[in-house]
């Protein structure tokens, strides 16, 4: 199932480059698209604004099928405090822009599964596919506004896949 998680993240990251090339962040000295996997980055006390944070939560497996179907739940957290030039008064508009970027990144709702443990990454035989996002109501924390979108990601376990 790690391949499914990796493929989902890499697909969203590559799509973000197309959807909004200006949405970048400087993390660990590298300028990259503003999306990260929480469990693969250092712990931070404060939620970083203007980026998409992927948090993997629930896991289920259906073994009754010829190939086991893995169901993973992914929460996508994002917050913004608006722009400095706008004095933060545009934070509602910035959140709406992030909603739109995320919706565009999640379409189409599938991507080829790949094994990133090999160099170069090897494209596998099945697809990773997911549901439409379910958005929470906006969450206000002082001068910040954010939201969580939840997506259920599906993947068939291929033979020999860990």
């Amino acid at each position, binding site marked *: 199932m790690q391949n499914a998680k*990796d493929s989902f993240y*890499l697909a969203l990251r590559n799509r973000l480059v197309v959807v909004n090339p200006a949405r970048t962040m400087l993390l660990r000295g*590298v300028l990259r698209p503003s999306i990260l996997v929480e469990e693969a980055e*250092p*712990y931070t006390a404060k939620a970083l604004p203007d980026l998409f944070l992927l948090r993997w939560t629930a896991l289920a497996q259906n073994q009754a099928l010829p190939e086991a179907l893995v169901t993973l739940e992914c929460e996508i957290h994002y917050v913004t405090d608006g722009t400095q030039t706008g004095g933060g008064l545009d934070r509602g508009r910035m959140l709406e822009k992030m909603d739109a970027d995320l919706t565009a990144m999640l379409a189409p709702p599938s991507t080829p599964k790949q094994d*990133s443990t090999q160099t170069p990454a090897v494209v596998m035989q099945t697809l990773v596919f997911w549901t439409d996002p379910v958005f929470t109501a906006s969450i206000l924390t002082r001068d910040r506004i954010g939201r969580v979108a939840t997506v259920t990601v599906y993947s068939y376990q291929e033979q020999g896949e860990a």
Partner: protein
Amino acid sequence: MPGPGTGADSEQIGLASGSFEDLPLSPAVIRKTRDKMQEGAANICEVLLSASAVAAKVGALNLDSADALFVMATGVMIGTKLFLIEAVASTEAFGQAYMYRLQLREAMPEAL
């Protein structure tokens, strides 16, 4: 502190952890804020840091602010123990920070 990344996919998906480097900060004062009350509970402490020492590191790393430094930090080593940064606050005089206060929690596995 995490060392500079390479931008490789493997680093972004947790396959390669990259390098880490120590960033000594002094002077510092460590205050224990809560005694260990129960078996297995994490130690919590507070560290007071000189703002000029922090500013020197911020400048050396070409960062925008002390906030950026603390966000990038993986944790704080006190002796041989790793502590995670839970919260950061600064104390100012005439609009200038002269001290940073970090609330730290010992990094240890927690029971579910």
